[in-house]
């Protein structure tokens, strides 16, 4: 059982810089929370405050209901995996993994047995006698993980543990970490700037920007229902297309006109939601996968035709990423069916799916 609570946590450095502002997060037992955001968004600072490596300027952090603001890292019952792995270079793998137990005065035999068990779990038994210098990046990452597992901590903290691995290894390690979380059933807090890691691993993800929590929800909900323009643009690759637009009312119906000359009728089921923004500047957002090639339109969508010129075509094999421009030069990106043969310069009547668009208030950048 281990819950984690951030209550109005703020971190302000001596030079006045506010790294984290008024952070509130409530973590249930066995959750896998991913803190995600661009660099400098305060995600690592939040993690370090939870670890006790950084002072908390104001607010409180609770682990299992106990306020830990003034508890030293060693008494918080946490384990942390660092981005650089931070292995002790003068110790063997086994010594690295057993160090925390040794400090606690665990009997040698038990240390050995627990280290071996953890090593087995991670498939690094044959490395136990080696020094960190003799290991590859992937192996080091496992040892760092092993060092954390051995302790069976209340909370598992990870600071971009996969960012030093190559792409293939990273995908593999991602899956392994998710499995590990299921197997050991401990609360995980995981920091990353990689949205693919956030989407695939977290039971919930917390998107941060400029020290402020933007949204916290399950990955699917954050992706499908972003709270604001930042979250909408941050998750998804290529990111969501945004068009500045104006809502106008015409005989009871709402029409969206973008500055680029695009006109979109608002579907009936959203009329009530948007009516109060009639006449105000808004931002229309649609993900690249919400745009279809006229020949490959699936059933069940609510298409509206948009004329655009293809500029750059990127063949990915399983999809085609195409950069389009509207008549006025506004650019956007579409992710199309790979069977569509598109040549740069071609003018297409693309189909925008109106069941999956987003509308934001331009002034507040919040979703409407």
């Amino acid at each position, binding site marked *: 059982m281990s819950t984690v609570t951030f209550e109005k946590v703020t971190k302000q450095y001596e030079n006045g810089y506010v790294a984290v502002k008024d952070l509130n997060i409530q973590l249930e037992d066995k959750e896998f929370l991913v803190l995600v955001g661009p660099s400098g968004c305060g995600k690592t600072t939040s993690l370090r405050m939870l*670890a*006790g*490596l950084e002072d908390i300027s104001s607010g409180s952090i609770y682990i299992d209901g106990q306020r830990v603001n003034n508890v*030293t*890292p*060693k008494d918080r019952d*946490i*384990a*942390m995996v*660092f*981005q*650089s792995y*931070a*292995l*002790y*270079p*003068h110790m063997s793998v086994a010594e690295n993994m057993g*160090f*925390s137990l040794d*400090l*606690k005065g665990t009997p040698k035999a038990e240390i050995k047995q627990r280290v071996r068990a953890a090593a087995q779990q991670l498939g690094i038994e044959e490395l136990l006698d080696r020094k960190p210098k003799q290991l590859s990046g992937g192996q080091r990452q496992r040892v760092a993980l092993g*060092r954390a597992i051995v*302790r069976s901590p209340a909370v598992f903290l990870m600071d971009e543990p996969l960012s030093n691995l190559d792409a293939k290894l990273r995908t593999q390690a991602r899956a392994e970490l998710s499995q590990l979380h299921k197997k050991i059933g401990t609360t995980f807090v995981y920091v990353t700037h990689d949205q693919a890691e956030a989407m695939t691993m977290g039971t919930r993800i917390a998107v941060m920007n400029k020290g402020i929590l933007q949204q916290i929800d399950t990955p699917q909900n954050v992706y499908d229902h972003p709270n604001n323009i930042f979250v909408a643009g941050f998750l998804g690759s290529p990111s969501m297309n945004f068009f500045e637009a104006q809502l106008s009312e015409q005989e009871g119906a709402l029409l969206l006109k973008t500055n680029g000359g695009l006109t979109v009728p608002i579907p009936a089921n959203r009329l009530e939601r948007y009516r109060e923004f009639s006449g105000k500047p808004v931002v229309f957002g649609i993900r690249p996968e919400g745009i279809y090639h006229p020949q490959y339109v699936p059933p069940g969508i609510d298409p509206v035709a948009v004329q655009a010129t293809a500029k750059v075509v990127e063949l990915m094999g399983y999809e085609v990423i195409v950069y389009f421009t509207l008549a006025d030069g506004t650019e956007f990106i579409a992710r199309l069916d790979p069977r569509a043969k598109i040549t740069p310069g071609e003018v297409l009547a693309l189909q925008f799916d109106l069941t999956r668009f987003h509308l934001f208030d331009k002034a507040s950048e919040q979703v409407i």
Partner: protein
Amino acid sequence: MNNNVALVLQALLAIALGSGGVIAVFYGLNILVEKALPQRAKLRVLPWIYVGPSMLLLGGYLVIPTIRTFYLSFFNGNSTEFVGLKNYLFALTAPDMLITFRNNILWLVLVTGLSVGLGLVIAVLIDRVKYEPFAKSLIFLPMAISFVGASVIWRFIYAYRPLGSEQIGLLNAIVVALGFEPVGWLVNRGINNFALIVIMIWLQTGFCMVLLSSAVKGVPDDVIEAARVDGASELQIFRRITVPMIMPTVTVVATTVVVLVLKVFDIVFVMTGGNLNTDVIASRMIKEMFNFRNFGRGSAIAVILLIAVIPVMVANIRRFRQQELNR
């Protein structure tokens, strides 16, 4: 006044001629080789042009004297009669010499142990001080003072006047102010060696601290934080993480200090002249050679000193090579 100007000019001239001369020699030889020799020979000769002069200097001023010292150590006082190992027998058995060796061991253990130990502790502590550069320069400052200069300073600190007269020595002034009798720091055979050793520690701690401090800074923050999360106290981090990680530097610093201590002479010479059981090997050697004019004995002591230094140097070089390999 005129005299002084002439002196300054002379000094400048010496610098110009000295460094200018060296440059001229290298430049001239280089041109000579470039112009006079065919391509193949040129490549072979060129390195020697640059290495040669320093090899000649080292040979003339280091290698040959060493060999000659070794040779002289088997002869009598004025180098006229072969005496075999008699000088070595003296050097290793005479009561005066045994005291000398005892002193040297004291110097070695205390100076190396304390200056490296203190240097290490200060290096770790100073890492967390706000005014680190200032504190560091303060501790490093004695390093800039010559041994003789330091000795002069410490003579004032240790100065002794009989009870009743004004104490001009700092230490005795404190001792008397506290109501005790003044102590003859440099005369009392129980403490005079330690009084000298303190000077060397004062001089060397700064050196150790600066080198060790850069090593301490080389320990990644992540590793320290990982240890903190793993449950280590600050003392455990120092003992089990920091010290093992900077061990290579500690060894290099320690061996450097050992070599320096083996060569120590100036402090003893200035403070006590080696009297009252304070002689060390180097000061004893000078005494035998130039005071007593016994070249045989002096040379034998010099050879012993040389042999004592060799293992330390070898260890140092090995360590250095290993470190280079690990880069």
